[in-house]
């Protein structure tokens, strides 16, 4: 019996993972600004990334934000309509713009 117990222990050792079961990344409520066009931002941007990704870019120009939206459409293949793209551009420029 004792021998069996030791064998069982040895067999188990390589299976000792640091993490057991699924990991879950917590949800963080980033303080995104509300305003005109926010619905389009929520509907299109949140599919791929948190609002943290937006607000932690710092204040940027309209050209920068438009470039980011185009990057999402052209390179990342985000299905954002032309209409929504313009609404998001205006929203970002108004709330996270640098005046340029």
């Amino acid at each position, binding site marked *: 019996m004792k021998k069996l117990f030791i064998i069982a222990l040895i067999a188990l050792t390589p299976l000792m993972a640091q993490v057991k079961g699924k990991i879950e*990344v917590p949800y963080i409520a980033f303080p995104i600004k509300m305003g005109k066009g926010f619905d389009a931002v929520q509907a299109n941007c949140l599919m*791929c*990334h948190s609002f943290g990704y937006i607000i932690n870019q710092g*204040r940027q120009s309209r050209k920068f934000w438009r470039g980011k939206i185009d990057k999402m459409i052209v390179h990342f293949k*985000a299905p954002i309509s032309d209409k929504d793209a313009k609404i998001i551009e205006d929203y970002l420029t108004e709330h996270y713009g640098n005046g340029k």
Partner: protein
Amino acid sequence: MKRRDFFKTAALTAGAAALGTSDLSAGETQQPIDNRKISDVAFPEKRPLITYSDRPPLLETPREVFTSALTPNDQFFVRWHMPDIPQYIDEKTFTINVNGMVKNVLKITLDQLKNDYEQVEVTAVLQCGGNSRSAFNPTAGGIQWGNGAMGCAHWKGVRLRDILDRAGLKKGAEWLAVSGSEKAAYYETPNFVRELHLDELDDHVIIAYQMNGEDLPYLNGFPVRLVIPGVYSDSWIKMLSNITVTDKYKHLFFMDHAYRVPDNDCECETPEKPFPKTKPIYRMNVKSLIGYPVNGGKLTHKSHSVVRGVAWDGGAGIKEVQISLDGGKTWDKAQLDDGSAGRYAYRTFRYSFKPMKLGKMSIMAKAINKLGEEQPFAKDVKWNHGGYKFNGIDEVKVEVV
């Protein structure tokens, strides 16, 4: 030029934006934003860290951790590109697939990786190319990292070269397309794939399954990641699951557009006149960071104080760290550790002095590597559109009381 106010450190709440206006003239690089607040929320296997995003997770290590030669796993920074990260990896069924222009297609289990190959170890700094991006003015594109998008760990694994030898490269093989297990939200989105030229591979490039003597944390790429000492972390593929050997370079978004700097001597440009040709950020430049004291800290008048920090570069090795207590006018040598952790590791430094004058004071650190390259003053670091490779002389401001 006006310097930032003395104790105007950007103490931001968890998840808050790195906003705030700069009073510097355009093009003047500054010290990166420092002393951001640590989040109240801990991510899996991590202590609470500075949190920029939860999906994908972006976590920064606070400054005070950088007095140690090795960065603890639970404080090690995190940066992913895609929103969908596997939440569970079965250690028994996970394989690293090697295919393409090879004689033997391999599916290497973790057990085989740990038992069928020579086991090697290396201590190496892992630093995001955008570390310290918030130093650039005007604001460069990307997450406005402070100084902590980096860490140094002792990695254990298997040489990539040994694995490729086992697979047997076919004639004409030149490139490796390496990818991990993270997935985009849309099927059409390009995966995060890095291409490495076979000439870039030396014996220090390993597939690591251990970090500081433990399993890799999930958020640092469990169960295996690529370790490329001396090179910025964008190529250190996490949750590495596939290596395809090819004869041709494939044009991919993450190779052709991301993580690139102007291909000129200063690696610089202006927002108005972007430089047309770019190159990968690749090898790290010489840099140092003060871990103690931190901005806004207090030192005791006439008491022995020891400044501590870390210095590193792209593998030439650190020759010297110098400290200035007078705003960069005069410099004095700091003591270095024995360097036994190797040329890819942090070289820790310490500098002992007695603050004799009450009030506010500045402490600066400057590293010089064995090639004679040294850090420029922060204000002299030239701008690039992605805000990459900032390596300005570090400065903390404290008060002697």
